[in-house]
Protein backbone atom coordinates (compact mmCIF):
# COMPACT_ATOMS: atom_id res chain seq x y z
CA UNK A 1 0.00 0.00 0.00
CA UNK A 2 1.54 3.33 -0.95
CA UNK A 3 2.49 5.71 1.83
CA UNK A 4 1.42 8.81 -0.05
CA UNK A 5 -2.19 9.53 -0.89
CA UNK A 6 -2.51 9.36 -4.66
CA UNK A 7 -3.50 12.52 -6.46
CA UNK A 8 -7.27 12.58 -6.90
CA UNK A 9 -8.32 12.26 -10.51
CA UNK A 10 -9.76 15.48 -11.91
CA UNK A 11 -12.83 16.14 -14.01
CA UNK A 12 -11.20 17.33 -17.20
CA UNK A 13 -8.76 14.43 -17.62
CA UNK A 14 -11.61 12.02 -16.85
CA UNK A 15 -13.82 13.68 -19.44
CA UNK A 16 -11.08 13.61 -22.02
CA UNK A 17 -10.32 9.96 -21.36
CA UNK A 18 -13.96 9.07 -21.91
CA UNK A 19 -14.27 11.43 -24.87
CA UNK A 20 -11.25 9.85 -26.52
CA UNK A 21 -12.72 6.37 -26.11
CA UNK A 22 -16.04 7.54 -27.53
CA UNK A 23 -14.27 9.08 -30.51
CA UNK A 24 -12.58 5.77 -31.25
CA UNK A 25 -15.96 4.06 -31.04
CA UNK A 26 -17.59 6.60 -33.33
CA UNK A 27 -14.87 5.99 -35.86
CA UNK A 28 -15.61 2.27 -35.75
CA UNK A 29 -19.35 2.74 -36.11
CA UNK A 30 -20.04 2.97 -39.81
CA UNK A 31 -23.59 4.25 -39.50
CA UNK A 32 -22.79 7.00 -37.06
CA UNK A 33 -19.72 8.00 -39.02
CA UNK A 34 -21.67 8.24 -42.27
CA UNK A 35 -24.41 10.27 -40.66
CA UNK A 36 -21.99 12.66 -38.99
CA UNK A 37 -19.89 13.22 -42.06
CA UNK A 38 -22.42 13.13 -44.87
CA UNK A 39 -25.65 14.58 -43.58
CA UNK A 40 -24.59 18.15 -42.90
CA UNK A 41 -22.99 18.42 -46.32
CA UNK A 42 -26.09 16.95 -47.95
CA UNK A 43 -28.25 19.41 -46.06
CA UNK A 44 -26.15 22.31 -47.28
CA UNK A 45 -26.25 21.04 -50.84
CA UNK A 46 -30.02 20.52 -50.80
CA UNK A 47 -30.74 23.89 -49.33
CA UNK A 48 -28.33 25.70 -51.58
CA UNK A 49 -29.83 24.19 -54.70
CA UNK A 50 -33.44 24.69 -53.63
CA UNK A 51 -35.15 27.63 -55.22
CA UNK A 52 -35.05 29.65 -52.02
CA UNK A 53 -31.39 30.50 -51.87
CA UNK A 54 -29.87 33.46 -53.65
CA UNK A 55 -26.26 34.52 -53.20
CA UNK A 56 -25.29 37.78 -51.56
CA UNK A 57 -28.67 37.98 -49.88
CA UNK A 58 -28.50 38.33 -46.09
CA UNK A 59 -31.87 36.80 -45.38
CA UNK A 60 -31.35 33.89 -47.74
CA UNK A 61 -27.85 33.29 -46.34
CA UNK A 62 -29.26 33.22 -42.86
CA UNK A 63 -31.95 30.76 -43.89
CA UNK A 64 -29.40 28.54 -45.61
CA UNK A 65 -27.04 28.48 -42.66
CA UNK A 66 -29.83 28.09 -40.11
CA UNK A 67 -31.13 25.10 -42.01
CA UNK A 68 -27.68 23.58 -42.30
CA UNK A 69 -26.87 24.13 -38.65
CA UNK A 70 -30.26 22.78 -37.68
CA UNK A 71 -29.77 19.60 -39.70
CA UNK A 72 -26.31 19.17 -38.24
CA UNK A 73 -27.63 19.47 -34.70
CA UNK A 74 -30.49 17.09 -35.41
CA UNK A 75 -28.47 14.38 -37.09
CA UNK A 76 -24.99 14.66 -35.66
CA UNK A 77 -25.95 15.47 -32.08
CA UNK A 78 -29.51 14.29 -31.49
CA UNK A 79 -29.77 11.13 -33.59
CA UNK A 80 -26.30 9.76 -32.95
CA UNK A 81 -26.52 10.49 -29.23
CA UNK A 82 -29.87 8.72 -28.81
CA UNK A 83 -28.32 5.62 -30.38
CA UNK A 84 -25.12 6.04 -28.37
CA UNK A 85 -26.87 6.45 -25.01
CA UNK A 86 -29.16 3.49 -25.69
CA UNK A 87 -26.27 1.36 -26.88
CA UNK A 88 -24.11 2.18 -23.87
CA UNK A 89 -27.00 1.58 -21.53
CA UNK A 90 -27.94 -1.80 -22.98
CA UNK A 91 -24.28 -2.85 -23.05
CA UNK A 92 -24.02 -2.02 -19.35
CA UNK A 93 -21.29 0.49 -20.14
CA UNK A 94 -23.09 3.30 -18.31
CA UNK A 95 -23.48 1.13 -15.26
CA UNK A 96 -19.79 0.27 -15.29
CA UNK A 97 -18.86 3.93 -15.66
CA UNK A 98 -21.11 4.77 -12.73
CA UNK A 99 -19.13 2.61 -10.34
CA UNK A 100 -16.04 4.50 -11.35
CA UNK A 101 -15.01 7.99 -10.38
CA UNK A 102 -16.86 9.83 -13.13
CA UNK A 103 -19.84 11.87 -12.01
CA UNK A 104 -23.15 11.27 -13.76
CA UNK A 105 -22.91 14.54 -15.67
CA UNK A 106 -19.37 13.72 -16.76
CA UNK A 107 -20.54 10.40 -18.15
CA UNK A 108 -23.29 12.01 -20.22
CA UNK A 109 -21.06 14.81 -21.42
CA UNK A 110 -18.08 12.57 -22.12
CA UNK A 111 -20.22 10.28 -24.25
CA UNK A 112 -21.45 13.31 -26.17
CA UNK A 113 -18.03 14.93 -26.69
CA UNK A 114 -17.25 13.42 -30.11
CA UNK A 115 -20.70 14.31 -31.46
CA UNK A 116 -20.35 17.86 -30.18
CA UNK A 117 -16.82 18.23 -31.51
CA UNK A 118 -17.82 16.93 -34.93
CA UNK A 119 -20.79 19.31 -34.97
CA UNK A 120 -18.56 22.30 -34.37
CA UNK A 121 -16.07 21.19 -36.99
CA UNK A 122 -18.81 20.48 -39.54
CA UNK A 123 -20.42 23.85 -39.03
CA UNK A 124 -17.09 25.60 -39.43
CA UNK A 125 -16.34 23.68 -42.60
CA UNK A 126 -19.76 24.24 -44.11
CA UNK A 127 -19.80 27.89 -43.17
CA UNK A 128 -16.43 28.14 -44.86
CA UNK A 129 -17.77 26.40 -47.95
CA UNK A 130 -20.77 28.70 -47.96
CA UNK A 131 -18.69 31.85 -47.62
CA UNK A 132 -16.13 30.88 -50.23
CA UNK A 133 -18.11 29.03 -52.85
CA UNK A 134 -21.71 30.04 -52.48
CA UNK A 135 -21.31 33.74 -51.83
CA UNK A 136 -23.06 33.49 -48.52
CA UNK A 137 -23.09 36.78 -46.66
CA UNK A 138 -20.95 36.63 -43.48
CA UNK A 139 -22.81 36.55 -40.13
CA UNK A 140 -23.71 39.96 -38.78
CA UNK A 141 -23.90 39.02 -35.10
CA UNK A 142 -21.43 36.26 -34.29
CA UNK A 143 -22.08 36.45 -30.53
CA UNK A 144 -25.78 35.81 -31.03
CA UNK A 145 -24.94 33.06 -33.48
CA UNK A 146 -22.64 31.43 -30.97
CA UNK A 147 -25.28 31.66 -28.26
CA UNK A 148 -27.77 29.96 -30.55
CA UNK A 149 -25.29 27.26 -31.40
CA UNK A 150 -24.36 26.51 -27.79
CA UNK A 151 -27.98 26.45 -26.67
CA UNK A 152 -28.82 24.26 -29.64
CA UNK A 153 -26.15 21.77 -28.62
CA UNK A 154 -27.40 21.71 -25.05
CA UNK A 155 -31.00 21.18 -26.12
CA UNK A 156 -30.34 18.47 -28.69
CA UNK A 157 -27.93 16.70 -26.35
CA UNK A 158 -30.29 16.79 -23.38
CA UNK A 159 -33.28 15.79 -25.50
CA UNK A 160 -31.25 12.88 -26.83
CA UNK A 161 -30.75 11.76 -23.23
CA UNK A 162 -34.51 12.10 -22.63
CA UNK A 163 -35.41 10.21 -25.78
CA UNK A 164 -33.03 7.41 -24.93
CA UNK A 165 -35.01 6.79 -21.75
CA UNK A 166 -38.03 5.92 -23.84
CA UNK A 167 -36.11 3.83 -26.36
CA UNK A 168 -35.49 0.18 -25.67
CA UNK A 169 -32.91 -0.81 -28.30
CA UNK A 170 -30.52 0.82 -30.72
CA UNK A 171 -32.75 -0.36 -33.56
CA UNK A 172 -35.91 1.27 -32.20
CA UNK A 173 -33.90 4.47 -31.79
CA UNK A 174 -34.37 5.00 -35.51
CA UNK A 175 -38.07 5.31 -34.78
CA UNK A 176 -38.08 7.25 -31.53
CA UNK A 177 -35.99 10.06 -33.00
CA UNK A 178 -38.57 10.72 -35.68
CA UNK A 179 -41.07 12.83 -33.71
CA UNK A 180 -38.55 15.43 -32.66
CA UNK A 181 -36.87 15.46 -36.06
CA UNK A 182 -40.07 15.79 -38.03
CA UNK A 183 -41.41 18.41 -35.68
CA UNK A 184 -38.24 20.42 -35.92
CA UNK A 185 -37.79 20.08 -39.65
CA UNK A 186 -41.40 21.00 -40.25
CA UNK A 187 -42.02 23.65 -37.69
CA UNK A 188 -38.82 25.16 -36.38
CA UNK A 189 -38.23 27.43 -39.26
CA UNK A 190 -35.28 25.49 -40.64
CA UNK A 191 -36.37 25.37 -44.24
CA UNK A 192 -39.27 27.73 -44.25
CA UNK A 193 -39.29 30.87 -42.12
CA UNK A 194 -42.04 30.91 -39.55
CA UNK A 195 -43.38 34.10 -41.07
CA UNK A 196 -44.41 32.17 -44.14
CA UNK A 197 -46.54 29.64 -42.27
CA UNK A 198 -50.25 30.30 -41.68
CA UNK A 199 -50.80 32.23 -38.48
CA UNK A 200 -52.22 29.66 -36.05
CA UNK A 201 -49.60 27.13 -37.11
CA UNK A 202 -46.81 29.64 -36.82
CA UNK A 203 -47.90 30.58 -33.31
CA UNK A 204 -47.80 26.99 -32.14
CA UNK A 205 -44.52 26.30 -33.86
CA UNK A 206 -42.92 29.25 -32.12
CA UNK A 207 -43.04 27.25 -28.91
CA UNK A 208 -41.43 24.07 -30.16
CA UNK A 209 -38.11 23.30 -28.49
CA UNK A 210 -36.03 23.86 -31.55
CA UNK A 211 -37.67 26.99 -32.95
CA UNK A 212 -36.15 29.62 -30.64
CA UNK A 213 -32.72 28.16 -31.33
CA UNK A 214 -33.24 28.37 -35.07
CA UNK A 215 -34.54 31.92 -34.78
CA UNK A 216 -31.50 32.87 -32.70
CA UNK A 217 -29.14 31.34 -35.22
CA UNK A 218 -30.92 33.06 -38.07
CA UNK A 219 -30.80 36.43 -36.31
CA UNK A 220 -27.15 35.87 -35.52
CA UNK A 221 -26.49 35.41 -39.20
CA UNK A 222 -28.79 37.98 -40.77
CA UNK A 223 -28.62 40.50 -37.99
CA UNK A 224 -31.54 41.33 -35.77
CA UNK A 225 -34.32 42.20 -38.16
CA UNK A 226 -37.72 43.69 -37.62
CA UNK A 227 -38.06 42.81 -33.98
CA UNK A 228 -34.70 44.30 -33.18
CA UNK A 229 -32.68 43.47 -30.07
CA UNK A 230 -35.80 42.90 -28.02
CA UNK A 231 -36.98 40.06 -30.22
CA UNK A 232 -33.51 38.53 -30.27
CA UNK A 233 -33.32 38.60 -26.50
CA UNK A 234 -36.74 36.99 -26.30
CA UNK A 235 -35.65 34.17 -28.58
CA UNK A 236 -32.46 33.62 -26.63
CA UNK A 237 -34.48 33.60 -23.43
CA UNK A 238 -36.88 30.98 -24.81
CA UNK A 239 -33.94 28.90 -25.98
CA UNK A 240 -32.47 29.10 -22.52
CA UNK A 241 -35.78 28.01 -21.02
CA UNK A 242 -35.90 25.03 -23.34
CA UNK A 243 -32.30 24.23 -22.43
CA UNK A 244 -33.18 24.19 -18.74
CA UNK A 245 -36.32 22.12 -19.33
CA UNK A 246 -34.52 19.55 -21.45
CA UNK A 247 -31.69 19.17 -18.94
CA UNK A 248 -34.25 18.76 -16.17
CA UNK A 249 -36.00 16.10 -18.22
CA UNK A 250 -32.72 14.29 -18.83
CA UNK A 251 -31.91 14.21 -15.12
CA UNK A 252 -35.42 13.03 -14.30
CA UNK A 253 -35.88 10.33 -16.90
CA UNK A 254 -32.48 9.12 -17.98
CA UNK A 255 -32.03 5.41 -17.40
CA UNK A 256 -28.60 4.10 -16.54
CA UNK A 257 -29.46 0.41 -16.76
CA UNK A 258 -31.62 -1.74 -19.01
CA UNK A 259 -35.07 -2.53 -17.67
CA UNK A 260 -35.07 -5.64 -15.51
Amino acid at each position, binding site marked *: *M*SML*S*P*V*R*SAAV*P*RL*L*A*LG*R*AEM*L*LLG*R*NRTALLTSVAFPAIALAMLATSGMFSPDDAAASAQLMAGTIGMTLLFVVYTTLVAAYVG*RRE*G*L*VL*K*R*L*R*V*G*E*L*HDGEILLGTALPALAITVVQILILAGVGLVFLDVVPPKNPVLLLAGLVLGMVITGALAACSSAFTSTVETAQVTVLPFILLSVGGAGMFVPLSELPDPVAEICAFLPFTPVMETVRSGWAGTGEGGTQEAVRQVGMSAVWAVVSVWGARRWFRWEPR*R
Partner: protein
Amino acid sequence: METTSKGPGGDGPWAITADGVRRTYSSGEGGGFEAVRGVGLRVGRGEMFALLGTNGAGKTSLVELLEGLARPSAGTIKVLGHDPYAERTVVRPRIGVLLQSGGFPGDLTVAETARTWAGATTGARPPGEVLELLGLGGRLDVRVKQLSGGEARRLDLAIALLGRPEVLFLDEPTTGMDPEGRRDTWRLVKQLQEEGTTVLLTTHYLEEAEALADRLAIIHEGRAIASGTPAEVIADHPSRIRFSLADGPVDLPHLGAGTRAKWTGRLCTVRTAHLQPALYALLSWAEERGAELEGLDARAASLEEVFLGLSESTTDDVAMEVAS
Protein backbone atom coordinates in the same frame (compact mmCIF):
# COMPACT_ATOMS: atom_id res chain seq x y z
CA MET B 1 -13.41 -3.62 19.54
CA GLU B 2 -10.13 -3.74 17.69
CA THR B 3 -8.13 -0.57 17.86
CA THR B 4 -6.21 0.79 14.92
CA SER B 5 -7.10 0.65 11.28
CA LYS B 6 -4.69 0.58 8.39
CA GLY B 7 -6.21 3.32 6.32
CA PRO B 8 -5.85 7.04 6.61
CA GLY B 9 -8.26 8.91 8.82
CA GLY B 10 -9.05 6.13 11.30
CA ASP B 11 -12.18 4.64 9.79
CA GLY B 12 -12.39 2.04 12.51
CA PRO B 13 -11.83 -1.69 12.31
CA TRP B 14 -14.57 -2.35 9.79
CA ALA B 15 -14.09 -1.92 6.09
CA ILE B 16 -17.77 -2.49 5.35
CA THR B 17 -20.79 -2.33 7.63
CA ALA B 18 -24.43 -2.81 6.75
CA ASP B 19 -27.45 -2.67 9.02
CA GLY B 20 -31.07 -3.42 8.20
CA VAL B 21 -30.46 -2.94 4.49
CA ARG B 22 -33.43 -3.24 2.17
CA ARG B 23 -33.78 -2.74 -1.54
CA THR B 24 -37.08 -2.54 -3.37
CA TYR B 25 -37.32 -2.30 -7.13
CA SER B 26 -40.39 -0.31 -8.01
CA SER B 27 -42.29 -1.42 -11.05
CA GLY B 28 -44.66 0.75 -13.00
CA GLU B 29 -47.67 -1.33 -12.08
CA GLY B 30 -47.36 -0.36 -8.45
CA GLY B 31 -46.07 -3.63 -7.09
CA GLY B 32 -42.49 -3.37 -5.88
CA PHE B 33 -40.16 -6.31 -5.67
CA GLU B 34 -38.11 -6.44 -2.50
CA ALA B 35 -34.81 -7.97 -3.49
CA VAL B 36 -32.97 -7.33 -0.24
CA ARG B 37 -34.94 -7.77 2.99
CA GLY B 38 -33.11 -6.47 6.00
CA VAL B 39 -29.51 -7.64 5.69
CA GLY B 40 -26.76 -6.76 8.12
CA LEU B 41 -23.09 -7.62 7.90
CA ARG B 42 -19.63 -6.58 9.00
CA VAL B 43 -16.44 -7.03 7.02
CA GLY B 44 -13.18 -6.34 8.79
CA ARG B 45 -10.17 -4.75 7.17
CA GLY B 46 -8.06 -7.18 5.24
CA GLU B 47 -10.75 -9.84 5.45
CA MET B 48 -12.16 -11.91 2.61
CA PHE B 49 -15.92 -12.12 2.92
CA ALA B 50 -18.15 -14.16 0.63
CA LEU B 51 -21.84 -13.74 -0.10
CA LEU B 52 -22.98 -17.18 -1.12
CA GLY B 53 -26.35 -17.77 -2.74
CA THR B 54 -28.18 -19.15 -5.72
CA ASN B 55 -28.96 -16.98 -8.71
CA GLY B 56 -31.76 -14.59 -7.92
CA ALA B 57 -31.11 -14.72 -4.19
CA GLY B 58 -30.35 -11.03 -4.00
CA LYS B 59 -26.53 -11.06 -3.82
CA THR B 60 -26.03 -8.70 -6.72
CA SER B 61 -28.80 -6.41 -5.54
CA LEU B 62 -27.08 -6.24 -2.17
CA VAL B 63 -23.55 -5.80 -3.40
CA GLU B 64 -24.61 -3.00 -5.75
CA LEU B 65 -25.82 -1.11 -2.69
CA LEU B 66 -22.50 -1.69 -0.95
CA GLU B 67 -20.72 -0.39 -4.04
CA GLY B 68 -22.80 2.77 -3.93
CA LEU B 69 -24.60 2.24 -7.24
CA ALA B 70 -27.95 2.90 -5.65
CA ARG B 71 -29.40 4.08 -2.39
CA PRO B 72 -30.93 1.38 -0.18
CA SER B 73 -34.69 1.61 0.44
CA ALA B 74 -33.88 1.29 4.13
CA GLY B 75 -30.90 0.73 6.38
CA THR B 76 -27.39 2.15 6.55
CA ILE B 77 -24.21 1.17 4.79
CA LYS B 78 -20.69 2.36 5.48
CA VAL B 79 -17.64 1.58 3.39
CA LEU B 80 -14.36 2.73 4.96
CA GLY B 81 -16.44 4.82 7.30
CA HIS B 82 -18.42 6.65 4.63
CA ASP B 83 -21.77 6.27 2.87
CA PRO B 84 -20.82 4.76 -0.49
CA TYR B 85 -23.73 6.39 -2.30
CA ALA B 86 -23.91 9.84 -0.75
CA GLU B 87 -20.15 10.20 -0.37
CA ARG B 88 -19.15 8.66 -3.69
CA THR B 89 -16.36 11.14 -4.34
CA VAL B 90 -14.62 10.11 -1.14
CA VAL B 91 -15.19 6.37 -1.40
CA ARG B 92 -14.77 5.62 -5.10
CA PRO B 93 -11.03 6.33 -5.39
CA ARG B 94 -10.46 3.76 -2.66
CA ILE B 95 -12.56 0.88 -3.97
CA GLY B 96 -12.47 -1.39 -7.01
CA VAL B 97 -15.59 -2.94 -8.46
CA LEU B 98 -16.11 -5.98 -10.64
CA LEU B 99 -19.70 -6.04 -11.91
CA GLN B 100 -21.51 -9.28 -12.55
CA SER B 101 -21.11 -8.84 -16.28
CA GLY B 102 -19.48 -6.70 -18.82
CA GLY B 103 -19.69 -3.00 -19.17
CA PHE B 104 -16.94 -2.45 -21.71
CA PRO B 105 -17.74 -1.43 -25.28
CA GLY B 106 -17.06 -4.34 -27.61
CA ASP B 107 -15.31 -2.28 -30.26
CA LEU B 108 -12.45 -1.03 -28.13
CA THR B 109 -9.30 -3.10 -27.81
CA VAL B 110 -8.07 -4.42 -24.49
CA ALA B 111 -5.33 -1.81 -24.37
CA GLU B 112 -7.68 1.04 -25.27
CA THR B 113 -10.13 -0.01 -22.59
CA ALA B 114 -7.40 -0.11 -19.96
CA ARG B 115 -5.99 3.22 -21.05
CA THR B 116 -9.42 4.88 -20.90
CA TRP B 117 -10.02 3.64 -17.38
CA ALA B 118 -6.53 4.53 -16.23
CA GLY B 119 -7.27 8.08 -17.34
CA ALA B 120 -10.36 8.15 -15.18
CA THR B 121 -8.97 6.49 -12.04
CA THR B 122 -7.14 7.98 -9.10
CA GLY B 123 -3.63 6.65 -8.60
CA ALA B 124 -3.90 4.20 -11.47
CA ARG B 125 -1.19 1.61 -12.02
CA PRO B 126 0.29 1.50 -15.50
CA PRO B 127 -2.34 -0.28 -17.59
CA GLY B 128 0.21 -2.58 -19.19
CA GLU B 129 1.34 -3.79 -15.79
CA VAL B 130 -2.13 -4.76 -14.64
CA LEU B 131 -2.97 -6.45 -17.91
CA GLU B 132 0.22 -8.51 -17.65
CA LEU B 133 -0.73 -9.49 -14.14
CA LEU B 134 -4.01 -10.90 -15.44
CA GLY B 135 -2.35 -12.73 -18.31
CA LEU B 136 -3.67 -10.42 -21.00
CA GLY B 137 -0.29 -9.15 -22.15
CA GLY B 138 -0.59 -10.99 -25.41
CA ARG B 139 -4.11 -9.78 -26.19
CA LEU B 140 -3.63 -6.03 -26.04
CA ASP B 141 -4.84 -5.30 -29.54
CA VAL B 142 -7.79 -7.65 -29.52
CA ARG B 143 -11.24 -6.09 -29.49
CA VAL B 144 -13.21 -6.76 -26.35
CA LYS B 145 -16.02 -8.44 -28.27
CA GLN B 146 -13.56 -11.03 -29.56
CA LEU B 147 -12.29 -12.09 -26.16
CA SER B 148 -13.29 -15.43 -24.71
CA GLY B 149 -15.54 -15.44 -21.65
CA GLY B 150 -12.62 -16.07 -19.32
CA GLU B 151 -10.44 -13.39 -20.93
CA ALA B 152 -13.24 -10.85 -20.73
CA ARG B 153 -13.64 -11.60 -17.04
CA ARG B 154 -9.92 -11.14 -16.51
CA LEU B 155 -10.13 -7.76 -18.23
CA ASP B 156 -12.99 -6.84 -15.91
CA LEU B 157 -10.80 -7.77 -12.96
CA ALA B 158 -7.79 -5.88 -14.31
CA ILE B 159 -9.83 -2.70 -14.56
CA ALA B 160 -11.13 -3.20 -11.03
CA LEU B 161 -7.53 -3.39 -9.79
CA LEU B 162 -6.27 -0.34 -11.66
CA GLY B 163 -6.67 2.11 -8.81
CA ARG B 164 -4.94 -0.04 -6.14
CA PRO B 165 -8.17 -0.31 -4.18
CA GLU B 166 -8.30 -0.81 -0.44
CA VAL B 167 -11.63 -2.59 -0.77
CA LEU B 168 -12.43 -4.84 -3.70
CA PHE B 169 -15.98 -5.85 -4.63
CA LEU B 170 -16.13 -8.92 -6.86
CA ASP B 171 -19.53 -10.01 -8.17
CA GLU B 172 -19.18 -13.60 -9.42
CA PRO B 173 -15.53 -13.15 -10.41
CA THR B 174 -14.89 -16.54 -11.96
CA THR B 175 -18.05 -16.99 -14.04
CA GLY B 176 -17.15 -18.23 -17.47
CA MET B 177 -13.64 -19.28 -16.53
CA ASP B 178 -12.21 -22.73 -16.93
CA PRO B 179 -10.89 -24.48 -13.78
CA GLU B 180 -7.37 -23.30 -14.40
CA GLY B 181 -8.47 -19.73 -14.85
CA ARG B 182 -10.52 -20.01 -11.72
CA ARG B 183 -7.56 -21.20 -9.69
CA ASP B 184 -5.35 -18.45 -11.08
CA THR B 185 -7.94 -15.89 -10.06
CA TRP B 186 -8.20 -17.37 -6.58
CA ARG B 187 -4.44 -17.19 -6.24
CA LEU B 188 -4.43 -13.56 -7.35
CA VAL B 189 -7.25 -12.58 -5.02
CA LYS B 190 -5.57 -14.33 -2.10
CA GLN B 191 -2.38 -12.46 -2.87
CA LEU B 192 -4.23 -9.17 -2.90
CA GLN B 193 -5.69 -10.01 0.46
CA GLU B 194 -2.20 -10.71 1.81
CA GLU B 195 -1.18 -7.27 0.65
CA GLY B 196 -3.94 -5.82 2.81
CA THR B 197 -6.87 -5.49 0.44
CA THR B 198 -10.31 -6.17 1.88
CA VAL B 199 -12.32 -8.36 -0.48
CA LEU B 200 -16.06 -8.88 -0.64
CA LEU B 201 -17.10 -11.37 -3.25
CA THR B 202 -20.37 -12.92 -4.29
CA THR B 203 -20.54 -16.38 -5.71
CA HIS B 204 -22.83 -19.30 -6.31
CA TYR B 205 -19.86 -21.69 -6.32
CA LEU B 206 -19.51 -23.44 -3.00
CA GLU B 207 -15.88 -24.45 -3.57
CA GLU B 208 -15.06 -20.83 -4.18
CA ALA B 209 -16.59 -19.70 -0.91
CA GLU B 210 -14.91 -22.53 0.94
CA ALA B 211 -11.53 -21.97 -0.66
CA LEU B 212 -11.38 -18.22 -0.28
CA ALA B 213 -13.57 -16.87 2.46
CA ASP B 214 -12.51 -16.03 5.99
CA ARG B 215 -16.15 -15.41 6.74
CA LEU B 216 -19.28 -15.75 4.70
CA ALA B 217 -23.01 -15.16 4.64
CA ILE B 218 -25.55 -17.28 2.83
CA ILE B 219 -28.10 -15.15 1.04
CA HIS B 220 -31.48 -16.60 0.21
CA GLU B 221 -34.55 -14.70 -0.96
CA GLY B 222 -33.05 -11.42 0.09
CA ARG B 223 -32.02 -12.39 3.59
CA ALA B 224 -28.77 -13.49 5.19
CA ILE B 225 -29.88 -16.82 6.58
CA ALA B 226 -26.51 -17.87 7.96
CA SER B 227 -23.26 -16.10 8.58
CA GLY B 228 -19.87 -16.54 10.20
CA THR B 229 -16.76 -18.50 9.43
CA PRO B 230 -17.37 -21.63 7.34
CA ALA B 231 -16.84 -23.76 10.45
CA GLU B 232 -19.38 -21.74 12.43
CA VAL B 233 -21.97 -21.96 9.68
CA ILE B 234 -21.56 -25.70 9.34
CA ALA B 235 -21.71 -26.23 13.09
CA ASP B 236 -25.13 -24.62 13.21
CA HIS B 237 -26.64 -26.90 10.64
CA PRO B 238 -27.57 -30.52 10.36
CA SER B 239 -26.25 -33.59 8.56
CA ARG B 240 -28.38 -35.37 6.00
CA ILE B 241 -29.59 -38.90 5.31
CA ARG B 242 -31.37 -39.75 2.11
CA PHE B 243 -33.11 -42.85 0.81
CA SER B 244 -36.06 -44.04 -1.25
CA LEU B 245 -38.71 -46.55 -0.34
CA ALA B 246 -40.49 -48.62 -2.95
CA ASP B 247 -43.78 -48.28 -1.10
CA GLY B 248 -43.61 -44.52 -0.89
CA PRO B 249 -43.97 -42.36 2.24
CA VAL B 250 -44.37 -44.21 5.52
CA ASP B 251 -44.37 -43.11 9.11
CA LEU B 252 -40.82 -43.15 10.33
CA PRO B 253 -39.91 -43.94 13.90
CA HIS B 254 -38.35 -41.46 16.26
CA LEU B 255 -34.83 -40.97 14.95
CA GLY B 256 -33.47 -38.72 17.64
CA ALA B 257 -33.80 -35.27 18.99
CA GLY B 258 -33.90 -32.43 16.50
CA THR B 259 -34.51 -34.67 13.52
CA ARG B 260 -36.69 -33.64 10.57
CA ALA B 261 -37.83 -35.86 7.73
CA LYS B 262 -39.30 -34.65 4.47
CA TRP B 263 -40.83 -36.77 1.72
CA THR B 264 -40.78 -35.89 -1.96
CA GLY B 265 -42.62 -38.75 -3.64
CA ARG B 266 -40.67 -41.87 -2.69
CA LEU B 267 -37.57 -39.95 -1.66
CA CYS B 268 -37.02 -39.17 1.98
CA THR B 269 -34.58 -36.58 3.25
CA VAL B 270 -33.75 -36.65 6.95
CA ARG B 271 -31.89 -33.79 8.58
CA THR B 272 -30.31 -34.32 11.92
CA ALA B 273 -27.76 -32.75 14.20
CA HIS B 274 -26.55 -36.16 15.32
CA LEU B 275 -25.80 -38.24 12.29
CA GLN B 276 -24.55 -41.43 13.86
CA PRO B 277 -27.42 -42.18 16.29
CA ALA B 278 -30.02 -41.20 13.70
CA LEU B 279 -28.47 -43.47 11.11
CA TYR B 280 -28.32 -46.28 13.61
CA ALA B 281 -31.99 -45.82 14.52
CA LEU B 282 -32.98 -45.73 10.87
CA LEU B 283 -30.99 -48.82 9.94
CA SER B 284 -32.38 -50.76 12.92
CA TRP B 285 -35.90 -49.89 11.94
CA ALA B 286 -35.26 -50.87 8.32
CA GLU B 287 -33.73 -54.15 9.43
CA GLU B 288 -36.73 -54.93 11.65
CA ARG B 289 -39.23 -54.17 8.97
CA GLY B 290 -37.22 -55.81 6.23
CA ALA B 291 -37.39 -52.56 4.32
CA GLU B 292 -34.87 -51.81 1.63
CA LEU B 293 -33.53 -48.30 1.75
CA GLU B 294 -32.79 -47.61 -1.91
CA GLY B 295 -29.99 -45.21 -2.70
CA LEU B 296 -29.05 -44.78 0.94
CA ASP B 297 -26.82 -41.76 1.32
CA ALA B 298 -25.57 -40.23 4.56
CA ARG B 299 -23.58 -37.00 4.64
CA ALA B 300 -21.96 -35.15 7.47
CA ALA B 301 -22.59 -31.45 7.54
CA SER B 302 -20.70 -29.48 4.98
CA LEU B 303 -21.12 -26.09 3.46
CA GLU B 304 -22.79 -27.70 0.50
CA GLU B 305 -25.32 -29.40 2.73
CA VAL B 306 -26.05 -26.21 4.57
CA PHE B 307 -26.44 -24.35 1.32
CA LEU B 308 -28.76 -26.90 -0.23
CA GLY B 309 -30.70 -27.46 2.97
CA LEU B 310 -31.35 -23.81 3.60
CA SER B 311 -32.33 -23.23 0.00
CA GLU B 312 -34.67 -26.21 0.10
CA SER B 313 -36.47 -25.30 3.26
CA THR B 314 -38.58 -22.65 1.62
CA THR B 315 -39.69 -24.54 -1.47
CA ASP B 316 -43.04 -26.29 -1.74
CA ASP B 317 -42.67 -30.03 -1.59
CA VAL B 318 -44.98 -32.79 -0.48
CA ALA B 319 -43.84 -32.75 3.10
CA MET B 320 -44.39 -35.10 5.95
CA GLU B 321 -42.48 -33.72 8.85
CA VAL B 322 -41.49 -35.84 11.74
CA ALA B 323 -40.47 -33.51 14.47
CA SER B 324 -39.52 -34.48 17.91
